[in-house]
């Protein structure tokens, strides 16, 4: 029996070693699987269980910084023609100064991804639509370019493409004569799910400001939901009752 023990030990050791190798080898794809689980298969329908949104901490937003604008432009290939009146802007920086107190602050303005979007209501063809996960988009194939959505948007968040485009990016298709706006970097969201970071938020972090947080408003454990619950935030034009997906924090009223 005593001779059998070393053998049994060796066998156990071999087994444990093999198990370690197997577990070790499966760790990397496992991590990848976790990421894939958070993403969405290309043919999988968008789930209404999620609602993507942004939390913008205006106290972290520097007046002189426009990194989010540059990040968005680069990500989507928004190249201006030096015609500010007609060049597209999906996100822009607003500088505010109170008329009586003189208090100044700055914040980014973009499509607010409303739960009850006026642009979707007024679109005659249904080209403006809201996905189940709350992202408001324009279907470039059925937009007729009537611009009624631009009349209806309370945030002036939409741009009409006034001229021929060249060198478009595959993940951000655009088209002359149609309307467009922030997509909440839907291509990143569909690829990476809750781990996605929109280009504006990414640029803001790279600049060291951390003013923009992206996440699932319906997931009570997400950073955005946790911060909204503990710190509070407000909607712009809350009086309209649109239940926006973009919320602003520490904004003087």
């Amino acid at each position, binding site marked *: 029996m005593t001779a059998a023990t070393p053998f049994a030990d060796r066998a156990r050791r071999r087994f444990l070693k093999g198990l370690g190798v197997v577990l070790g080898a499966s760790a990397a794809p496992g991590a990848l699987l976790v990421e894939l689980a958070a993403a969405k298969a290309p043919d999988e329908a968008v789930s209404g269980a999620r609602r993507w949104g942004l939390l913008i901490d205006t106290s972290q937003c520097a007046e002189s910084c426009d990194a989010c604008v540059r990040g968005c432009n680069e990500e989507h290939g928004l190249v201006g023609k030096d015609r500010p009146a007609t060049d597209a802007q999906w996100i822009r920086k607003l500088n505010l100064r109170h008329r009586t107190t003189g208090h100044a602050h700055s914040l980014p303005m973009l499509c607010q991804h409303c739960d009850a979007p006026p642009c979707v*209501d007024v679109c005659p063809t249904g080209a403006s639509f809201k996905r189940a996960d709350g992202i408001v988009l324009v279907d470039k194939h059925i937009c007729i370019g009537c611009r009624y959505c631009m009349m209806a948007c309370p945030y002036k968040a939409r741009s009409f493409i006034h001229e021929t485009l060249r060198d478009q990016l595959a993940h951000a298709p655009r088209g002359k004569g149609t309307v467009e706006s922030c997509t909440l970097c839907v291509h990143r969201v569909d690829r990476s799910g809750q781990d996605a970071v929109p280009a504006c938020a990414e640029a803001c972090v790279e600049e060291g400001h951390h003013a923009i947080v992206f996440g699932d408003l319906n997931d009570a454990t997400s950073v955005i939901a946790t911060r909204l619950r503990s710190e509070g935030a407000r909607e712009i034009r809350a009086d309209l009752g649109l239940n926006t997906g973009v919320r602003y924090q520490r904004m003087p009223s």
Partner: protein
Amino acid sequence: MRPGAFSVIGPRSAGFRILVVALGGVLLAGLWAAHTMESEGHHITGMNNQIVWGIPHVFAVFLIVAASGALNVASLNSVFGRVAYQPLARLSAILAIALLLGGLTILVLDLGRPDRLIVAMTYYNFRSIFAWNIILYTGFVVIAGIYVWFMMERRFQRYSKPVGFAAFAWRLTLTSGTGSIFGFLIAREAYDAAVMAPLFVAMSFAFGTAAFLITLLAVARASARPLDPDILARQARLMSIFVVVVLYFVAAFHLTNLYAAEHGGVVRFLLVDGDPYALLFWAGQVTLGSLVPLVLLWTPRLSRSPAACFVAACLIVLGGLTQLYVIIIGGQAYPLMLFPGYEVSSTFFDGETGRYSATLNEYLLAAGGIALAALIVTLTVRVLPIVPERLRLAAGDSVTART
């Protein structure tokens, strides 16, 4: 000559040919302008991301609204039993169709993607008042067309009255729908008002009657068929009442806004310091477009003069275009108020008054739509018996008989 008989206007004259060629030329210029706008992109127009609807929309909405009102005379006959107007009903309906087609042509050719018109006709979002209007506009052309057909076809004449009723109900809905395009816009302070629907109905009555009177005087002159002064006097009186009703709704709209402190800014912008909107409102819409025509139409000596009525009708048309300019362009030029109490600035013109300066292409497109409407009327009265041989009210004036 049979009393109440209709006949085509002819024979072909040099004047007719010149008119058709001239209108065709303007229409072609409009089509060329639209083609240029589509191929170059809208950056060659004055429209931009701040003022998204411009001069084409001003003219398109004017023609669509006037189309509805142009049917007044036909409605007086079929709906209100004023059979005295029966001889003019055909022309009234033809003008209505022509104006609507002219307006729609402008609207469609200004789209960013006019080639996708079929999409607009096949994909409907029924929450959109715009989608409803697409149905209302096409339906109006169909109903008014059937109405004219039934009036002209002896076998169907007895059905023309119910079709006339349908056309009347349809056009009231149509103009309410057009007004609601603006009334439903919650985002903008210059709109977002239920009164937009009845205001546009009143505007349609005034502009449509003015357009009909201009057409009637032109047809009478071109066909050398003397116009009964009685027709002129009644149309002029009716038109003046409609002008007053429009002023009433405009006053109600602005006074209601003025009462709410939050809207004080937009009222001030449109009526006092908005450049050029305040000037256009007081000088164009109110004075030249309303008060001067009222003086012309209410001065006994002038009200029976064709020239005075013609001038009054033209001024009402100009006043109407001015009014729509103030509503459509002025309403967009006033900045969106996202942060009350704050001065706002950005690279996207936040907090600034929108700037708009229409280009030649836009005016050509608008003129093309008007030319199309005029061409439709000109060719129709040339080939179909639309105009009565005697431009007078029917015998046995039922207006006095019934009232």
